[in-house]
């Protein structure tokens, strides 16, 4: 009988301290996520130094909880997986150095994982039978990529944002509307009370055939709209603005993902990353895919947020190919996915 592969994974690239035990790449035995959102709220965004301090305070307990919940012992582990980029360098270093210490102490291999790659793997956890190839949109506070997933570890980036990430645009607009932080879920919620066609915000498709994104123009027109209303002394309808803004973002995201799926003859249009939790994006994408006979896949919200289970899944497919990392591995804040 084939031996099970158990991987302890760690993720600290932004403001979530997370640890998970993943069996054979697809089975999540535990997935502990300690969020710092409440701490960063008062600053209106993630403060890197504060995030790094909190990661260091919490990481050992988070790992203990993950081990306990999985009922595993350290001797049962085959490898330690960790995100080494992209992300906030100070935050990445806590997870990475802790992982190196664990790997060294246990004398088992370290597997460094790209955070964006990790988001794709949330879908392999969600859908046990899913196999590449397929086309995937990874959209979060830091990234907006359309990726052709050719095989495990083999990716072609079809498009990426040229300025703001999709989630970043949500955060900035939410801040301007004084909704709070983080912006994604707050805009999603208030938009349900607004009219998506109330204001005609621009949709930036860039040049014909491009899968790239640009959200800075949209962000500026939302800010201009708010300023104009204020100057004219007119009442600002936050729900209408949020709904119209959100519609502009998700319309472009969904269109480009569908076009990419058609071009690559992918049977699936797959979502990943924090923005994949947006209810309107899921709804609109499902509508557009139905016309083209493409199946829409997206993970549960808990797997859309930054979490270590997805890192453990990605690490499994590297580990079985013998792709382990040196204990001199450094954090790379702008790590790219293109190979």
């Amino acid at each position, binding site marked *: 009988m084939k031996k099970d592969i158990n991987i302890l994974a760690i993720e600290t690239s932004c403001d979530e301290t997370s640890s998970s035990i993943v069996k054979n790449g697809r089975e999540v035995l535990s997935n502990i996520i300690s969020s710092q959102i409440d701490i960063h709220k008062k600053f209106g965004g993630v*403060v890197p130094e504060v995030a*790094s301090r909190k990661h260091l305070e919490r990481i050992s307990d988070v790992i203990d909880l993950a081990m306990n919940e999985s009922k595993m012992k350290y001797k049962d582990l085959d490898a330690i997986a960790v995100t080494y980029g992209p992300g906030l360098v100070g935050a990445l270093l*806590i997870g990475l*150095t802790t992982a*190196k*210490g664990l790997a*060294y102490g246990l004398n088992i291999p370290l597997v460094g994982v790209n955070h964006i790659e990790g988001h794709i793997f949330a879908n392999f956890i969600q859908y046990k039978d899913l196999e590449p190839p397929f086309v995937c949109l990874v959209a979060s506070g830091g990234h907006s990529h359309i990726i052709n997933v050719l095989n495990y570890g083999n990716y072609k980036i079809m498009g990426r944002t040229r300025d703001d990430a999709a989630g970043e645009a949500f955060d900035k607009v939410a801040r301007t509307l004084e909704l709070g932080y983080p912006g994604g879920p707050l805009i999603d919620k208030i938009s349900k009370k607004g009219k998506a066609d109330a204001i005609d915000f621009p949709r930036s498709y860039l040049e014909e055939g491009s899968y790239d994104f640009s959200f800075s123009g949209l962000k500026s027109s939302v800010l201009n709209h708010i300023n104009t209303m204020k100057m004219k002394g007119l009442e600002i309808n936050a729900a209408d603005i949020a709904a119209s803004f959100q519609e502009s973002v998700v319309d472009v995201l969904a269109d480009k993902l569908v076009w990419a799926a058609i071009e690559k003859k992918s049977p699936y249009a797959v979502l990943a990353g924090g923005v994949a939790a947006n209810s309107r994006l899921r709804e609109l994408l499902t509508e557009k895919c139905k016309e083209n006979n493409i199946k829409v896949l997206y993970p549960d919200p808990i797997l859309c947020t930054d979490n270590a289970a997805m890192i453990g899944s990605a690490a499994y497919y590297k580990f079985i190919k013998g792709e382990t990392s040196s204990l001199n591995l*450094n954090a790379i804040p702008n790590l790219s996915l293109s190979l």
Partner: protein
Amino acid sequence: MKVLAIDTSTVAASAALIQDGSLCCEYFLNDGKKHSEKIISIIDYVIKSCGLEAKDIDVFSCSIGPGSFTGLRVGASAIKGIAQALGKPITGIPTLEVLAYNLRGFKGLICPIIDAQREMVYSTLFRFEGDTLLKIKDFSAIVIDDLICRLGPYDDDIAFLGDGVFLYQNKIKNSLKNARFADVGNILPRASSVASLAIIKYKEGHLLWYNDLRLDYIRKSQAEVEYEKNHIVTIVNMKAEEIDEVVEIEGLSFNNPWSYESFDFEINKNNLSRYIVAKTDGRIAGYAGTWLVFDEMHVTNIAVHPDYRNRGIGNKLVEEIINIARESGLKRITLEVRNSNNQAICLYEKNGFKAEGFRKKYYADTGEDAIIMWKEL
């Protein structure tokens, strides 16, 4: 017993292993490379050089600050990770003690200074009594000029070390005749000193589990400092309903505190008095009292709540009373301060006050002299 210790609090990284009381291996590397890339290799080199494996170590130790925020975290993460994997205890050693321990046996005072940027250093004044390291004065994070001022009264030799020496050696040499400087081999923290102190802590029973290790950054993150600055301290005239809080701070600050009745008189009955408070988080953080007599201002008391010290609130209060004196058209300000209250004297000097005289044995509790200071407006 086998202790493995590391230090990553400054530009240099080091690891050392003490086995049964003797230093078996120490590795010190100051090559400008990132700590995160090399820390595990250095630890591995030291352990293997002693013919051991990580699981043979009884106690792991690291310096816990102050120092480079990222450097400290890399060291602590590595040590915590290894200790967690092996289920071994940890000790955390304050970096300033580690530095002082580089100079064990030195007869005078030892003043480690670690660069805290913006003309500031982290510093504590130590002295060895036999083999025991005694803390004489904790300066926390302090402007280098203020530190030099605070060290003025000491006559003994003072040995300086730490990366602050690279920046401020000339300045210190020019101001303090009794200043000495550690030689090049001792100027930065060394893991062998961390290990020696770890053994002392071990014998005293001060062991931690990996979950409990906390770094002592001394300084908050810049974002928190800015947040406090922008959101918190406001200085306003004191009101009668604030007397209770002020009396509490008075009690926490002075041996012979003024009573409720004294403050009540000052606020409600004395026409010459002017009292201000610094408010933060809805609480009183500090206060200052003055009398406006003819063309002079007499400062009666200034104090800051212990929870809010080292945030520049005392300085804000002094600046505000100087403003009040100027706006009221007064010519000079005077105050008395205890001879031993070096911190206050330095604060007043920074704001232009000069010592002009003494009142012998002015303070009844200790028989100390009062220094009379004046500022001309």
